[in-house]
């Protein structure tokens, strides 16, 4: 026999631990509180076996450079660490130095260099090293060289009255497909089959008119997003928590119809029970939580909007340099590398 008060306290403690509740004007239970000693009756000390039992990863969708997967049983701090590493600390190759031999186009040198830096280069960064500090020349182990040499000329065969630039001029649009790889040193032997080029061929870099030309040499180096956003390997990487919608009381008829419109399509479905229309939560995962339901006085107390605290729905979209699953594995390895670095320092540096 349990006192109702004790049961209510248990339920609210469980709720505080497992759910982040979205109220009308604010969000409650945001912070992680399941540390040892906070809750009597719960053993919260770190237990690797319990973590391994409860943890799971489900890949939902993997297509076209986008990977959507679920991580269940992990905490916000670690999930956020993975997201931050995906954005800022997974290395890639990008154009860093642009040697301008001739640029008579309308695009200024520095603007052209900036645009070239942002073009994603299809080159596996794991094959290259970081460039040493202060090294100006660049060796074959840390640099990729590209050349962009293009000149615009008038088309003598064009019709007299045409005003379409595609007919009048040759090479008036400079695309990323005009960037060609120039092997340095022994790169031609090291990478005989490799085809280093920009990921997309149709990135417009500059526009030219007859007589204008661009002749530049580019050095690509390995860098991280922390240094400059051009080195970030993801178009974006984000996560959200799994939504959890509970109906506190049965909702029927007209109220059920209104309730269905308050949420994203597919979240609430209406079933016909004994002639009455009853609302049921079909798929809470699809909801984007616009909180429209709080604008209806009659409905706002019938629903509890919450999120499951340890269920993360990650969405990683790659720029095309590396496939997204490789990016996630690299990010996890980078976090391990950071820990290892401090463990090594602890062992080597004497503590006073």
């Amino acid at each position: 026999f349990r006192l109702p008060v004790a049961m209510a306290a248990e339920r609210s403690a469980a709720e505080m631990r497992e759910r982040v509740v979205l109220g009308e004007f604010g969000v409650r239970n945001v912070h992680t509180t399941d540390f040892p000693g906070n809750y009597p009756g719960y053993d919260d000390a770190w237990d690797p076996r319990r973590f391994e039992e409860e943890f799971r990863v489900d890949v939902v969708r993997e297509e076209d450079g986008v990977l959507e997967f679920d991580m269940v049983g992990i905490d916000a701090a670690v999930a956020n660490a993975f997201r931050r590493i995906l954005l800022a600390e997974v290395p890639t190759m990008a154009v860093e130095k642009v040697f301008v031999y001739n640029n008579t186009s309308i695009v200024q040198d520095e603007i052209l260099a900036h645009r070239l830096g942002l073009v994603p280069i299809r080159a596996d960064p794991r094959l290259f090293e970081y460039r040493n500090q202060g090294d100006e020349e660049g060796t074959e182990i840390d640099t990729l060289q590209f050349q962009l040499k293009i000149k615009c000329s008038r088309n003598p065969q064009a019709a007299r009255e045409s005003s379409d630039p595609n007919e009048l001029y040759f090479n008036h649009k400079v695309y990323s497909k005009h960037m060609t790889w120039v092997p340095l040193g022994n790169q031609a032997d090291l990478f005989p089959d490799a085809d280093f080029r920009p990921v997309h061929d149709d990135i417009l870099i500059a526009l030219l008119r007859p007589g204008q030309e661009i002749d530049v040499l580019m050095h690509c180096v390995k860098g991280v997003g922390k240094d400059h956003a051009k080195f970030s390997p993801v178009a974006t990487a984000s996560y959200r928590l799994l939504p959890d919608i509970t109906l506190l009381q049965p909702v029927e008829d007209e109220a059920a119809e209104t309730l269905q419109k308050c949420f994203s399509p597919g979240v609430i479905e209406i079933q016909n029970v004994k002639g009455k229309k009853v609302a049921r939560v079909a798929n809470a995962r699809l909801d984007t939580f616009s909180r429209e339901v709080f604008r209806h006085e009659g409905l706002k107390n019938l629903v509890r909007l919450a999120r499951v605290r340890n269920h993360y729905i990650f969405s990683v979209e790659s720029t095309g340099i590396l496939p997204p699953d490789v990016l996630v594995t690299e990010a996890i390895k980078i976090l391990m590398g950071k820990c290892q670095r401090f463990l090594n320092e602890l062992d080597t540096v004497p503590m006073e």
Partner: protein
Amino acid sequence: VQADGTDGNCVTFVLHDEDHTLGNSLRYMVMKNPDVEFCGYCITHPSESKINFRIQTRGSLPAVEPFRKGLNDLMGVCQHVLDTFEVRLLPEELRGLF
């Protein structure tokens, strides 16, 4: 890594070239340790990339121990996440092997 404090129980580690990425996740792992009375981190100034990571232990355990255990636990978590993730990416047939 620099450490200073009054006695072995309360130590502030200064971790260079780190930010919330390692700071928050390490703080979470150290807080899960029942011997730790206090654990927190702060970024001294946003222009400098270093964090002050402070651990205070109950009793007489030297503070380096929870720090080391936290790092090892975090490595264990990463390793398990990596393994689970890689198994999930394999096609159906091979998954039974793990």
